């Protein structure tokens, strides 16, 4: 039974659904792009510079590390570009060039590659990098200071800063921000983090296409909302209501694009819900009680840390004995 034709032989299964890493990353890029474009329109050429530099340098670092580690070149899978874009989206438009390059270096090298590359990172690379920048150069991530030379048609105070110092400001200062204005992006913030509407639409696209799981963003937002309501009910003069917390700062981009990072988030349903709720809760806790103006960065790092433990909550395998 020797055949003349050489056939390809391998083990089952012989079909694949066709989904791939590259497709996934490019779709997330696509979903994030509208919010980034609106940011570029609002903040002008400096924002375009930051976005371009962040994406380009992230790809450059990735390529450099691939060469250094003698691994196959993984630039083409789109993940480095995605990290670059998401990193730029949370930066102020006037971020100095060196800080952008250092930031992407931290994200790609320390955040992703030293752990073994895509899929092995315990923390979200973007959040890890932003956290390091926030601690090292706090002034660079102070939106009011960085965007002082812009002339906006809307209130140019960073909403979360107003929320943080409500007790010291005149009563009603926080009421200047309406939910609709925040949703449309009429607020100060990161390049791609201000226009809530487009971030939500991008997130919904990703959920419908199955690239992110609805459990994480929804529970994250529920966590933020519930905790904010509790604080607001306890002391309405000191703590802002849920709308401010949900629609300003990094909340939406965090819920839809950062907390949902595959490698650092759980895969089972109950852990995903707990992960999101905990992230939302920690966000508002840090904002209202902690030292930082925005709590999303450290909240996401904290839930990333809890992820392996949370993911141990899983259904029992069918047929398992003892």
């Amino acid at each position, binding site marked *: 039974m020797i055949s003349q034709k050489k*056939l*390809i032989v391998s*083990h089952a299964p012989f079909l694949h659904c066709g989904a791939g*890493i590259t497709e996934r990353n490019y779709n997330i890029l696509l979903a994030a792009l509208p919010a980034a474009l609106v940011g570029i329109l609002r903040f002008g050429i400096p924002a375009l510079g930051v976005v371009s530099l962040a994406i380009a340098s992230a790809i450059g670092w990735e390529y450099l590390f691939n060469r250094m580690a003698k691994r196959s070149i993984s630039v083409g899978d789109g993940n480095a570009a995605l990290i670059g874009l998401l990193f730029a989206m949370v930066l102020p438009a006037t971020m100095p060039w060196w800080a952008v390059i250092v930031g992407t270096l931290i994200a790609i090298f320390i955040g992703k590659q030293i752990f073994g590359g895509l899929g092995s990172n315990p923390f979200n690379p973007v959040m890890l990098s932003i956290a390091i920048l926030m601690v090292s150069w706090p002034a660079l991530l102070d939106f009011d200071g960085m965007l002082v030379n812009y002339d906006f048609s809307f209130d140019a105070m960073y909403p979360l800063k107003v929320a943080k110092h409500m007790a010291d400001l005149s009563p009603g200062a926080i009421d200047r921000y309406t939910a609709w204005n925040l949703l449309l992006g009429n607020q100060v913030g990161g390049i791609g983090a201000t226009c809530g509407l487009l971030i939500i639409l991008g997130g919904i696209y990703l959920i419908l296409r199955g690239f992110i799981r*609805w459990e994480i963003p929804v529970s994250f937002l529920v966590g933020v909302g519930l905790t904010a309501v509790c604080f607001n009910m306890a002391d309405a003069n000191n703590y802002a209501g849920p709308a401010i917390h949900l629609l300003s700062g990094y909340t939406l981009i965090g819920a839809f694009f950062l907390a949902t990072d595959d490698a650092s988030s759980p895969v089972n349903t109950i852990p995903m819900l707990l992960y999101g709720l905990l992230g939302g809760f920690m966000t508002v806790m840090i904002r209202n009680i902690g030292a930082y103006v925005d709590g999303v960065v450290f909240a996401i790092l904290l839930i990333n840390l809890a992820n392996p433990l949370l993911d141990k909550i899983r259904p029992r395998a069918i047929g*398992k004995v003892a």
Partner: protein
Amino acid sequence: MKGKSFFGLIKPQIVYPSTATAASDFKRMPAPNRATFLIRDDWDKTDKAPLKVGDVIKTGQKLIVSVDPSAYAVSSITGTVSDISPFSGDSGQNFTAVTIDASGEETPDNSWEAAAEQATLETAAEYLDALPGAPGLARFLKSEHGIHTLVVLCADKDMLVGTQQHVLTSQSEALKSGIRILKEITGIDQLFLAVPKDRVQGYGSLGAEVKAIDQKYPSARPRLVMKDVLGTVVPMGKTTEEMGVAFFSAEAVAAIGTAYETKKLPTKKTLTIIRKDGRRSLLETDLGTPIQKVLATLGETLNEKDRLILGGPMTGSAIYSDLHPVCPDTDAIMVQDHSDISFVSDADCINCGECVRACPVNIPVNMLVRFLAAGSYEDAANLYDLYTCIECGLCTYVCISKIPIAQYIRLGKHELDRAKAAEETND
């Protein structure tokens, strides 16, 4: 061939096909001029050898290759033995391949006619185990086999295959007598007919209780039928027989029925051919027909670097040669064009969780595959449920990193079994 839907939130539902469309072009192939039979036994080459090159074989004659046979085949043609050689099958199973050249005229073998007068388990096991569908009656010969329930599976275990469903519609009379005889010879009265949900109506007269099985792959796999239909979970490491349930394919039972009704051994096998362009054809051919001939009948071409698969796309096995014969348990033949073959990659797991959500038995595949890739098979088995895997292949089908998860799982089980065997010999 089968892709992810645009909206991924809707889980990729892989549904067993209905055979209604495929059955319309049902073909019957003429008898082949050469047939090969694979017998899972070692060939005895001594003078006492029961089978030699040059022997004349009649249609329906049992083929035995050793003095103390552990398996046999039934010839589907009349002719002379032209070749006997060893053959190595999937996962190193040893077979003896017996090739028979047809003589042109058909002479039936009568030994079964006498044996069929009285239906007993012993004679049935002696003659019928190599019939289409591979009944496996030898399971009942062991004393204290503990089997108390029979299940006739009228659904196909793999996706895209429609063989058993076709047998259910086209051979229901034979199925009915097969069920009656099976109950009689085994003495087991509890017999269920497991039928796809959409075809549950109209089979009440076959003499067995009809149970519906879900149409979503892999619900027709015996372990899941046990869980969902019979309500018994088969613990890992145990077979369904050890839990007291014996599964038969519809074709096997129909063949038993035909053998007793006509006093002749049936040797026609129903096949589903899954073609390169995704079309499926149903066809009936003699056991032992080379696959080459089956494909030629349909006008299907097989080129260099294509893939030829015995069985369905999720659990079948790829073979080296198109001269491989149609065997009693070959329910489907699949041909894949070189350009359609999806290759695996060496990318790491990105922890997306698609596999975990696809797994029918709740294995944390994302963790399991990390341990398997690192070679920590013991931990994979103890901490992450390696042995509960039913090898349906769904995790590999949905894997975004294109990791060969199913292959890792088979390797892990194989290595652990080998280590265990080595330990036992050391003791």
